[in-house]
């Protein structure tokens, strides 16, 4: 093909095409979720944190400490599985901030921000995709638990309700990490700060042990730790005795998180330089 023909071909592709109707916010958000999920196809390693880590943690805690903590590993499993589920998903929320920071530093978001679309959709889309990852993590932990001998009294419904409340809380919590992701310069810094924040709130909780044996000052912290409240809510749902107070507390906390951090995220996102 000579240069002139090529020029004609380019012009043909560039001349006015009929402009499609402007898509709605839900549609563009789902398109962004599709984008995030496509990446799993190319970098399947990024599923390690939702597959390998929870499996490792569950096995380690069950067999290392289970006998000592609860008399037998099977007794400990009933206690641990809901908690380890909370820990896995809460840790996974960090990646929301990390991947957002990556996107911004690469300039990809400059294009998105200059598109005529509902402006939160790149962020909402990313969070929808993350919720898919959280679901994968949940299914893996529950499946492993069932294999090892986890027998939830709440049945299938109780387990699903437990997972749902974790997803709601994590989706809301993710907005904190989008703020961190927008404020910090590098994704390494985002990772570092977020982990520093998450380690104490997941370990100083009732996930692994009953706080009854802890010193008073630590117990005071553990009792008001949101992760503990969430864990209690999940345990009771999966155990077939829903604890309304805790459920209400988690739903309220989730709403507050979104009301505070979603607008803050959007403000930072719009004014990012």
């Amino acid at each position: 093909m000579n240069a002139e023909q090529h020029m004609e071909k380019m012009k043909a592709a560039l001349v006015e095409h009929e402009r499609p109707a402007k898509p709605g916010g839900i549609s563009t958000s789902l398109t962004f979720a599709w984008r995030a999920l496509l990446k799993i196809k190319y970098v399947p390693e990024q599923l390690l944190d939702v597959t390998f880590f929870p499996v490792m943690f569950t096995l380690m805690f069950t067999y290392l400490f289970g006998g000592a903590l609860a008399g037998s590993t099977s007794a400990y499993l009933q206690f641990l599985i809901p908690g380890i589920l909370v820990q896995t998903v809460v840790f996974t929320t960090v990646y929301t901030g990390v991947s957002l920071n990556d996107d911004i530093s690469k300039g990809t978001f400059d294009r998105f921000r200059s598109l005529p679309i509902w402006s939160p959709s790149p962020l909402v889309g990313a969070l929808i995709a993350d919720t898919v990852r959280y679901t994968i993590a949940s299914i893996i932990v529950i499946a492993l638990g069932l294999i090892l001998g986890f027998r939830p009294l709440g049945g299938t419904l109780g387990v699903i309700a437990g997972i749902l409340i974790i997803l709601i809380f994590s989706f809301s919590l993710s907005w904190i990490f989008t703020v961190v992701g927008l404020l910090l310069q590098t994704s390494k810094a985002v990772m570092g700060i977020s982990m520093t924040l998450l380690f104490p709130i997941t370990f100083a909780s009732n996930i692994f042990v009953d706080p009854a044996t802890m010193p008073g000052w630590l117990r005071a912290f553990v009792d008001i730790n949101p992760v503990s409240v969430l864990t209690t809510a999940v345990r009771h749902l999966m155990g077939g005795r829903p604890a309304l107070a805790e459920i209400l507390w988690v739903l309220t906390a989730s709403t507050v998180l979104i009301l505070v951090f979603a607008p803050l995220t959007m403000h930072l996102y719009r004014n990012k330089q």
Partner: protein
Amino acid sequence: MNNIINHDDRPLAVHAEGLVKRFGKQRAVDGIDLSIPQGTVYGFLGPNGAGKTTTMKMLATLLKPDEGQAHIMGHDLLTEPNAVRRRVSLTGQFASVDEDLSGIENLILIARLMGYSRKDAKERAGELLDAFGLEEAAGRQAKKYSGGMRRRLDIAASMVVRPDLLFLDEPTTGLDPRSRNQIWAIVRALVSTGTTVLLTTQYLDEADQLADRIAVIDHGKIIAEGTSGELKASVGSGVLHVRLQDPATRAKAQKLLADTIGAPVHLSSDPAALSAQLTAQKKGTQALAALDANNIEVSEFSLGQPSLDEVFLTLTGKPTENDVQKDGAKS
């Protein structure tokens, strides 16, 4: 520069007055006025850190100006940012394609966001990849593309719905000459379909080749504006370079040239070469005739308009090269 005149009757793609952007104490953009007629290519020329990218980002709704106002395709930048976004497209300085996705997925993504159905998005993506010579790389991840391919994919993404105004930030920085020519061909094709292009560049020949009008920007201000011919004319009529057959005749030649041209003649380090700044174009031919009449044989000569490099040097008092190192800072 408050006296920019709209040189023809075409409606304006960009009309900006007194744009200012501060980063801390530094005035990155310090009062820029622009009038860019539709269907033309307008070049921002300047070193890194001059304020080119910042100005472009403000016009593309990515940054809010601290002062000033602008209309883009007739829409107010400050009060109708969404209307502006529907008419413009931005291809950033650092390729804004998603490197983890393949070429075709990148274009499908943009097409879906612009409202194409799944099937139409795929079709449009294929059409653009084909037109930009990327059809064979369609299924490959963009991170495995060469610099030139990535640039073309980036521009293709801006063309999914043809914008009325395209911002191209340093479209050929770091590209090899062949890729550069391909990008230039794309820009020309674009303009022929009616899109207005605003491009920034550090390369003077790029501005010279593509832009109808050029604004030379330094320290956040437009220090000169016009066609490349006007800019060149503003610093004189060019330079005569002569190389003699016999270096021994140089002293005589120097005297002859000085007499005919009426300006100092510069002796270069090459013992057979000399050059002189011309005050008028025809003095060059007169000088050559004088050498011939005195039997001084010339092996090479060139007579030309000053290069834009010389223009830039004259206007800013510093060469362009010392700013070429890339530091990723806003420019």
